[in-house]
Structure formats: structure tokens, C-alpha cells
């Protein structure tokens, strides 16, 4: 399976390179577009597994995690020297005006990718159950207001303080991270005790956080 993944990544990277070249991207811009394209392919392969929609393959997950790790950290930041932004680039000026944050997210991606390689063997079940978002099994027909809808009870989901943004969910729950400038990686995360999909979610949230701040367009 991983051979297919790698092959797919190579093919799609090549297609991405062609597309990028057609858009006028060259040099470093094209290089980072290819890197992003390769990561996208890896994420596309991992996501169905993490949702339980295709059979879980721990070895493939581990190898994909290593590949993601190789694209992250200083490898990623090294592709963004301060320069004029060509028209073809999706990069935003904020990368360089808030370089510390960009570099932190890039390093966070590397750490979580490494974490996924460790958690890969656990599959979708954490050896130690981690807090998860509550599931609502409402069965009543909803009325006109939200009162008719059952909402998750506090002990199962986030606290009022987390929901209101008073405390960061990253500080108390290993389920999520990477958001605002104030949210930092919780210390002492034990990836060996986490389910692979929990770590994968952290990777996706790191990507989303970075894209929200530093990439043009949705």
C-alpha cells in the first residue's frame, strides 16, 4: 500500500509541478508548492484511514508520518527565504513579519509527524483513553429553537471555560492544539499513549492554523 502511496505522491507532485509551472511558479516557489502537494497527497491517503473508512495500515501510517516529518521543520522554513512574493505564490507577507510564529508551526508539524510515527502502532484506539468530543445522539424532532436540541453535557465535551475561550483547550486536553498565538504545545505529550487519529488531528490543526495565517485564499 505504501508503495502506492509513494507512487501516487510522486505522480501528483509531478502533476502539481506541471500545474505550478503553468501558473508561472519557478524555483523555490515551485519547490515549496511541490512539497505542499506531496504533503497533501499523504494527508489524503491518511484521512480515510483515520476516519475508519478504509482498513487501518499501521506500517503505511508510520511511513507516511516519516515522509511528513521530512517536509516539516527547518526543511519547510528553509523554503521561505524573505523575498518578494511572486504572483503565482500563495504565501502571505505575514510569514516574514511573524516569522517566529511561522517557524513554531513548522516545528510543531515536525513534532506531531514524529508523534504520528510513534502512535501509528496504536491504531485508532489509544492505550490510555483520551478525552474526546462528545457525541450527541439526539432523537427528538427539532423545533424552532435550540432548546429542542439536546446538546452535549459538560463532562463529555469541552468545559464552559474552554468553549468561551477563557482557557485554551490545548492546556487541558490532548485532543487539540495549534491554534491561536497563545496556544502552545502542551508539555509532556506522550504520543505512545495516544491513538493515531488523535495525533493526526493535531497535524491537521497545525496545517489549518498555518494556512489561516500565512496562505492566501481558502
Amino acid at each position: 500500500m505504501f508503495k502506492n502511496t509513494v507512487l501516487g505522491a510522486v505522480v501528483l507532485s509531478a502533476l502539481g509541478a506541471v500545474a505550478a509551472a503553468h501558473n508561472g511558479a519557478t524555483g523555490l516557489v515551485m519547490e515549496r508548492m511541490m512539497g505542499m502537494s506531496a504533503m497533501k497527497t499523504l494527508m489524503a491517503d491518511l484521512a480515510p484511514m483515520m476516519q475508519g473508512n478504509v482498513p487501518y495500515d499501521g506500517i503505511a501510517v508510520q511511513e507516511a508520518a516519516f515522509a511528513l516529518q521530512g517536509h516539516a521543520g527547518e526543511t519547510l522554513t528553509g523554503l521561505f527565504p524573505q523575498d518578494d512574493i511572486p504572483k503565482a505564490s500563495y504565501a502571505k507577507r505575514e510569514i516574514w513579519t511573524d516569522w517566529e510564529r511561522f517557524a513554531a508551526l513548522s516545528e510543531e508539524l515536525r513534532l506531531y509527524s514524529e508523534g504520528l510515527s510513534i502512535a501509528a502502532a496504536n491504531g485508532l484506539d489509544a492505550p490510555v483513553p483520551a478525552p474526546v468530543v462528545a457525541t450527541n445522539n439526539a432523537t427528538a424532532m427539532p423545533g424552532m429553537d435550540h432548546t429542542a436540541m439536546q446538546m452535549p453535557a459538560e463532562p463529555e465535551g469541552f468545559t464552559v471555560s474552554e468553549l468561551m475561550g477563557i482557557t485554551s483547550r490545548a492546556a487541558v486536553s490532548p485532543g487539540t492544539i495549534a491554534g491561536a498565538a497563545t496556544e502552545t504545545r502542551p508539555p509532556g505529550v506522550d504520543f505512545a499513549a495516544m491513538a493515531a487519529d488523535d495525533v493526526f488531528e493535531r497535524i491537521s490543526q497545525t496545517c489549518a492554523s498555518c494556512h489561516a495565517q500565512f496562505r492566501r485564499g481558502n
Partner: protein
Amino acid sequence: MRGLIRTNFAILATSLAVIGVIAIWPIAEPTHIGMLAGDAYRGAYLARSSGCIACHTNSAAAGAALAGGAPLDTPFGSFVPPNITPDLAGGIGYWTLDQFAVALRQGVRPDGKAYYPAFPYEFYADMSDQDVADLWAALQTVPPIAEPAAAHDVSFPFNMRWGLKIWRAALMTPAAISPVLGQSVAWNRGQQLVTGAAHCAACHTGRNIVGGLKASEMLAGNDKLPGGSVAPPILAVALVAKGWTVANMAYALRTGVMPDGDVLGGSMAEVVQYSTSYMDDADREAIATFLLTIDGQVPKDVARETPIADAGMTGMAHSSGMVME
């Protein structure tokens, strides 16, 4: 000459009189919720789902919760989401529950002036008294911040708030959500979230030159979002054509990962990060169910798949030919 002066004076006087009448034109309908007790947890969940936290907290600048959001740059000017902490001076601590209800559902400030539609009050118009009381209870849990948010920076003529009354009369479209009995619980809940609290149309629908939503283009996308962002169409046919299913859309609303492996960016990444990722799985699936319904039903190949992976057998791939007894 004297006639011309007289005419100009008449026009000026009439204009001032019209403006004066508009300025004192009452737009708030009286609301009496009274002392209805709210549930802070339900309110907090609703505040997340409705984007209150995302908008009124400047997370990128490490701002305090609900102490004022990041400026929203639009063609009409820069709007700053205000401080809605319970501080008496800087926030809304001096408001009553009834005033809060009017502000939230009708878009009218306690002083009787209209809010700019950058505040999506139209989408909150159908919230129940209990919803309002719950939100109010949740707001009381936030530490008060004395410093008010910066003022809006809106250029002439949009800086004349009385003009908003004309805008409201002509263009305001308050949400009116009716449950559809022939549809599933998930679809109805999705309708409630998409067309109400989560206010998807605020970004995914085009606007006319004075900022009104184009009713004929509802959810058909908007390529002129503030900051140069683009909101794609989220009509069912377009979504299905792009490979969206109930499962992968619910997953994207939780994690940001799209079906092609890309991760959402721009303002939608913020929506996921600060709002939908806090929702429960059922609500995310409800949104997806509503958005992916074509001709009254979700196409079979788009509906929720049954997971086939055996999560318990870690590290093992089950080939399609494997038979288990």
C-alpha cells in the same frame, strides 16, 4: 435668484427633516424575556457554534476572551467587533437581558441605533428566548475587561448610522427557520445551524453594492470576501461534484482536512479552528446532511459510509479477500 435660493433652502430643510425623522424612527421591537434563567453550558456551546468567540476575541493578537475581535476590513470600512465581556465600562455589563435580546436578534443597540450588518444579527433572529438567556448566562462567566474595543473606521457616507435604518427596511432578511417534518432530525438540525446560528450564508453568499445578501445567490459562493478571500459555492450539486460526502465534510469541519488531502485555509480555517471543531459529531454531520441534500435526499453514495476498518486490530491491514469467522 431669490427663487433659486428659496428652492435650495426648501430642499435642504426637507432633507434635514427627513434625516431627523429617520434618526428618531424606532426600529427595536419591545422584548420582555424578564428573568428567564439561562444554562451557561448550553450558552457557551451556542456561542461557539454561532461564531461569537471567533469574532469577538482577537486570538491572533492573544486578546482576552470576548474583549474585542480583530478588525474586519470591508469595502465600507474597518469594523471592530466590540468588547462583550460583562465589564460595566468597557463591555456590556450594564445591559439588561432584554437589551441583549434586542441587540442579538434585531441588531439594535440599547441606545436605539442600528448595528452594521458586519454583525450577522439577521441569522440570529430566530433564536428562542431560552437561547438568548443561555448565551447571556455564558457571557457572565467571562472575566470583565475594562478596555473597550477600538471604534469602527468607516468612511462617509457609511459612517452615518441613521442610514442603516433605510438599509434594514430595504435589505434586512431575518432568519425564519421552519422544521420540515418529512426530513430527518439531522437535516433539520443542519438547517437550523446552516441558516441560523452558524450563519454560513454570511460568507458563502454574494452581496450587492450596499452589502445586502443576494437572495437569488444563496450559498452560491462569494469571491469578494473581506481581505481578498473567496468563499466557494456550498450548494449540494457543487459540493457533490467536488467529492464531498457527509462523512468527509463532517471530518473537515472537525479537522480542516478536505477530501483531496488539502487543509482548509483563510477564514474557513478560522471557522473550523474557533467554531466547528468545538461542535459535537452529530452537529457536524447535521450540517453536512443539510448541505448535501439534493431534491430532498442525500444521494446514496454521499450519505454516511459505514466504517469498515477494525480499529481494534492495530497495525494490520485487512485485505478485501480476507474472510473472518
